[in-house]
């Protein structure tokens, strides 16, 4: 690398800084520029800064984000989150590798076009399985769809859409005017809602219609995206689900009168013309319509109570006035007027609010400990490192309600006496980062953040720390290490961060969702919050509902709602006539609760009693085609890779558990392995240093507890769910008509073409990719 090309490093160091805690931002900037981390650039960083080479290298190899080899022109992320896993992420990755000619064991094709990367979770679980090509997300992928996905991506690349502009001023006055709300969370955008948004705006402009096309945050009904809502004065709101951008014109035409006589005439003519020319212009747009009183919609929304997601689907995430008009910043103003911060903490304590990040530690007492510390400097941190595969609550909250999270964090800061805070957000959530950044910018511009919080004499500085891809950084001591510019390795608690945290100062760390509840609690009072929920778990909980469920999405329900109510009423049950088998709650730290315990209420204690945990709120529904041994194996695969590697039980113990599970899944298990697995799981849980290791065995322990017979079947070489590829084979039945479709689609040529004859599958070549079964029009492929 020529020295002139290292000028970028020099400039970056000058811009970002040379202190040890600048290491992650520096590496991120360098990678952004070179697309990987060239060694000369790293040497240059060491030469220019106070960062030790050992520290730099330790960090550069710890976080998933950092690459050490040049990459192809495009990066393909294959999501391996829980929902994607159970819907066939492995098959998708195999097919993608074939499609893109990426050799086994490599990550880039010989032409250097595509580099494939596995991602723990993109947080678009309702679209599973998901792949992301550069910044374009594609959902519901199957092997057969891939060629179209790739060509679509390449055509988009040729004409890239303009990136989201943030903080744009509203085009029209907001009172008394019709509005079209378009959900623009990342999952909606993955389904094309950004294109729809642009098309609607264009149509409205073209017709000069009296309507404001407005971006709103997540609507929650992810299963029906892109979703738009039309709100006109004095009329009930109208929803349209799964609208295509091509339909934008008709939606606008149908609902809104253009301004000016000439345009009205032309509209009438245009419609006539359409009818004449196309003949089906009349086809009712109603096929997209959803009525809020529609049983599906009311079942989905009926049980929900919105606190963290208050005004969901109505607020433009970055419209400061609108947030303020909807009670925004009332709570922080009240807090700043309050001379006694202890009373704020009392309110939070009396509300019964508990941490929503997983462990459920009561928030009030935690705030109190930080408040009590006699220290000149204290910090607050918003933990937005939502790494659990199968969870996307925090992403949605950050994307949809950036001001609310910031307000919650500011309240916490005032309550504990901190003047500096950080929002630690995982880098897999670029939209969340950009919206929080825009929100912070706006608040600073207005003078509401910085020297005078909301104009009061209270300095508060907030900044963003982007994670670099490490699940363990959700653990608070690891998160602190990461902000300090270290490898994200947890340490023994006590001392707790509340006593000695960031740079050894008292530090309050709360999860995104916890903070999102705080303004509501201050505004409405602790009693209102405590009135919801159960005896020990108050208020509501946001869940990311995904997997084998009709209506997946983002939901907020009172604590104590049962799993059955969530899965069957809100989620509409399991699709395709399959059988509801279990829910996986809490991701890699959680457990599988079987269908027969579906009446378990979701609160911290009840879930703990059945071996699961609340976790951050990922809730993946499993049906009878899901193998519980495979689920356990899947999670252990995740944890042994995500372990920071510090302590023996977690680093080696989870790997040995995985070894045992892999033997089971490939039919090589022996009877004594079950007892060994169980004993090891308990010891890993006991012996591990931090929460990651202590809870990593939960998926194994709960599946062993509730689905032992499935483990035993694997010992006998059977996978009852027909999922473990080493234990199943595909076979053509007598129903085969010899249509050759399977042979044409088989990606490994394991089915010889035999027109008009019953086909056969070469078991040696077959990779159990399931393609033949899916394409067969005669249902003539069976799995044995």
């Amino acid at each position, binding site marked *: 690398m020529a020295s002139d090309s290292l000028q970028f490093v020099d400039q970056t160091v000058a811009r970002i800084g040379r202190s040890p805690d600048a290491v992650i931002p520096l590496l991120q900037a360098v990678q952004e520029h070179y697309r990987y981390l060239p060694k000369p650039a790293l040497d240059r960083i060491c030469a220019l800064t106070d960062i030790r080479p*050992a520290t730099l290298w330790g960090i550069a190899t710890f976080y998933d984000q950092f690459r050490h080899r040049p990459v192809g022109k495009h990066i393909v992320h294959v999501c391996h989150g829980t929902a994607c896993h159970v819907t066939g992420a492995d098959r998708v990755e195999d097919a993608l590798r074939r499609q893109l000619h990426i050799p086994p064991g490599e990550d880039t094709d010989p032409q250097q076009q595509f580099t494939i990367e596995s991602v723990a979770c993109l947080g678009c679980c309702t679209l599973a399985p998901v792949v992301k090509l550069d910044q374009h997300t594609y959902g519901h992928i199957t092997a057969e769809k891939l060629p179209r996905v790739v060509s679509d991506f390449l055509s988009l690349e040729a004409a890239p859409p303009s990136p989201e502009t943030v903080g744009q001023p509203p085009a029209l006055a907001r009172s008394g005017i019709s509005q079209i709300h378009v959900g623009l969370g990342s999952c909606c955008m993955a389904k094309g809602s950004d294109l729809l948004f642009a098309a609607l705006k264009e149509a409205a402009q073209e017709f000069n219609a009296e309507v404001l096309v407005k971006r709103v945050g997540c609507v929650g009904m992810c299963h029906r995206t892109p979703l738009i809502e039309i709100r006109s004065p004095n009329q009930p709101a109208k929803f349209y689900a799964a609208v295509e951008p091509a339909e934008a014109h008709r939606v606008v035409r149908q609902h809104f009168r253009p301004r000016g006589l000439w345009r009205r005439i032309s509209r009438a003519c245009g419609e006539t013309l359409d009818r004449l020319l196309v003949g089906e212009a009349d086809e009712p747009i109603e096929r997209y319509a959803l009525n809020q009183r529609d049983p599906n919609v009311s079942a989905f929304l009926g049980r929900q109570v919105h606190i963290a997601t208050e005004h969901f689907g109505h607020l433009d995430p970055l419209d400061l006035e609108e947030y303020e008009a909807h009670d925004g910043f009332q709570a922080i103003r009240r807090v700043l007027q309050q001379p006694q911060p202890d009373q704020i903490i009392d309110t939070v304590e009396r509300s019964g609010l508990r941490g929503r990040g997983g462990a459920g530690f009561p928030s009030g007492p935690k705030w109190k400990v930080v408040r009590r510390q006699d220290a000149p400097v204290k910090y607050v941190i918003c933990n937005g490192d939502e790494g659990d595969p199968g969870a996307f609550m925090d992403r949605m909250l950050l994307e949809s309600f950036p001001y609310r999270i910031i307000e919650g964090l500011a309240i916490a800061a005032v309550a504990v006496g901190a003047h500096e805070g950080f929002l630690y957000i995982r880098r897999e959530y670029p939209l969340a980062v950009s919206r929080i950044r825009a929100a912070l910018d706006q608040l600073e511009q207005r003078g509401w953040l910085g020297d005078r919080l909301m104009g009061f004499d209270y300095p508060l500085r907030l900044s963003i720390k982007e994670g670099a891809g490490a699940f363990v950084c959700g653990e608070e001591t690891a998160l602190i290490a990461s902000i300090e510019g270290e490898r994200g390795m947890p340490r023994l608690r006590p001392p707790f961060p509340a006593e000695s945290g960031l740079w050894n100062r008292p530090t309050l760390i709360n999860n995104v969702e916890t903070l999102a509840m705080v303004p509501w609690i201050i505004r409405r009072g602790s009693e209102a919050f405590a009135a919801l929920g159960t005896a020990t778990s108050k208020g509501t909980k946001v869940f990311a509902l995904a997997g084998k469920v009709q209506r997946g999405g983002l939901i907020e329900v009172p604590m104590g709602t049962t799993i059955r109510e969530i899965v069957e009423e809100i989620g509409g049950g399991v699709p395709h006539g399959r059988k509801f088998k279990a829910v996986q709650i809490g991701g890699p730290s959680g457990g599988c609760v079987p269908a027969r315990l579906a009446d378990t209420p979701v609160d911290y204690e009840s879930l703990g009693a059945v071996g699961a945990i609340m976790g951050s709120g990922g809730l993946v529904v499993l049906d009878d085609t899901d193998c519980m041994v495979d689920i356990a194996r899947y999670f252990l695969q995740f944890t042994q890779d995500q372990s920071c590697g510090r302590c023996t039980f977690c680093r080696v113990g989870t790997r*040995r558990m995985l070894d045992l599970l892999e033997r089971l899944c490939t039919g090589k298990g022996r009877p004594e392995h079950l007892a060994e697995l169980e004993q090891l799981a308990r010891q890993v849980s006991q012996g591990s240093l931090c929460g990651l290791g202590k809870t990593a065995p939960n998926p194994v322990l709960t599946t062993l507890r509730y689905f032992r017979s499935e483990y035993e079947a694997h010992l006998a070489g059977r996978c009852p769910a027909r999922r473990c590829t080493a234990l199943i084979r595909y076979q053509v039945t007598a129903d085969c008509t010899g249509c050759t479709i399977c042979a044409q689609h088989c990606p490994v040529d394991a089915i010889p073409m035999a027109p008009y004859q019953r086909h056969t599958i070469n078991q040696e070549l077959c990779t159990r990719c399931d393609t033949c079964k899916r394409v067969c029009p005669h249902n003539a492929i069976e799995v044995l």
Partner: protein
Amino acid sequence: MPELIIDGQSVEVAPGATLLDAARQLGIDIPTLCYLEQCGPMTSCLVCVVKVTQNGRARIVPSCAAKAEPGMVVESETTEIRDLRRTAFELLLSDHVGDCLSPCHRICPLDLNIPRMIRQIETNDLDRAITTLRQALALPAVLGRLCSAPCQNGCRRGGSCGGGSAAIRDLERFVADACLRSPDKYLPARKPSTGKSIAIVGSGPTGLAAAYYLLRQGHACTLLDRQPRPGGSLRRVDDTSLPPAILDAELDAFKQMGAQFQVSTPVGADALSTDHLRRNYDAVLIAAGELSKTELDALGLLASPVGVRVNTATGQTEHPNVFAAGSAVKPVKQLVRAMSEGQAAAECLHQFLVGLPIRPLEKAFSSVMGRLEAPELDLFLKSASPIPRTAPAQGLGAGFTVDEARGEAARCLHCDCRAEGSCNLQHYAELYGANPNRFARQRRLFEQHRHPARVIFEPGKCILCGICIHIAQQAAEPLGLTFVGRGFNVQVAAPLDRPFSDGLQKVAAECVKHCPTGAIVFDDTFERTHS
């Protein structure tokens, strides 16, 4: 001054003390691998876990990091905690690529430290080589001629690319003959007399091996033999294979150690009965070779289908003070096995005599790497003499010359670990009865990085304690060391793919000293440890 209770004992400690400090104050041995005072707690190995109950809540914590607080109740030596620690050792060992003991040593039924002896031959340190040999073998010159040498089957040079296994038995004989030629015969030390006497019936290999052990323990031994000359089956070996003078010379050594031989003394109903022996000696060992049913009856011992009926683990018969071993119990073909059985029974008999619970001694602990892949073997071959196996030029009867022996010794691959004997992992794994093979797994490849300044880094043996990283950082090493990667695949390395030793320009010696295993060693650590 916090006061707390550990394993039922109350202790008062200085403020800020850890639970490990408190336990050590009480003399409770909590194992540690990653703890070094100057580095502070690493909380990596987790073998120091204890259970703490405080305010009604119990939790398991690493004692090196957890601070002692008043009123804590701490459990250390409980089954639960010992099991947990054992699992921690077994997990570490499951990813520990290296052998503590060489394969030949592990195979040797008499536990001869073969690579150590060979190193002593190679450096021409015959005195120590004889001591090493004498430590393990009752009849070195006999075994050096007659042993079936199972050790040589385990030698890693035995494969196609090794040029033949090391000539271990010939080297053994070379040392043993030197011993016989020496004026003092290098007789092993005996412990002070215990005042106990033992009758050993049979003075063949089994009885002699037992006597060799028991004499050293300070017991008086009388070997009774029905034949006119002691030696048992060894007297039936042809003179070329075993010149009688050699056997006699080795038997002389026994006499010098104080053994009594009572020859031409049949034992049985019509001569000295078992009862008689039991009355006149503190214990009896039957090592008389294969016995007929009549002879067994005459001895008054219960019979199994193949010999004297004993507890197969200990060699004890239905009479608590009568033991039996070797072909008297079950026919034994190999000489070296017969001797190891004699020694094993002697160990149990010794425990009986001194009032210890009778438990067969377990083999020394060793991590086991198993078969090596070709590139791994090359790493070992690289530092050994490339010549093929040598045979004594003057014929088998004459044995190796000094030069031949040293040349052959140079072929040894030294498969044992340089930290053997000083390794904390080995020490505690043995103490906790850890099974290095509890977890079946895909083993990582053995790697060895040799560096200037004679530093050797074997990453497979690293347990990721982080001590070297910390020492390098404290010393402000310009490059330093770091953890690289994440999860199961974390390794310790110098940054930016530089050689390991580049990270240790100042503090290599300190890191070698504090490495809890044999991951960082000096090339010549072998000599340092053993000389």
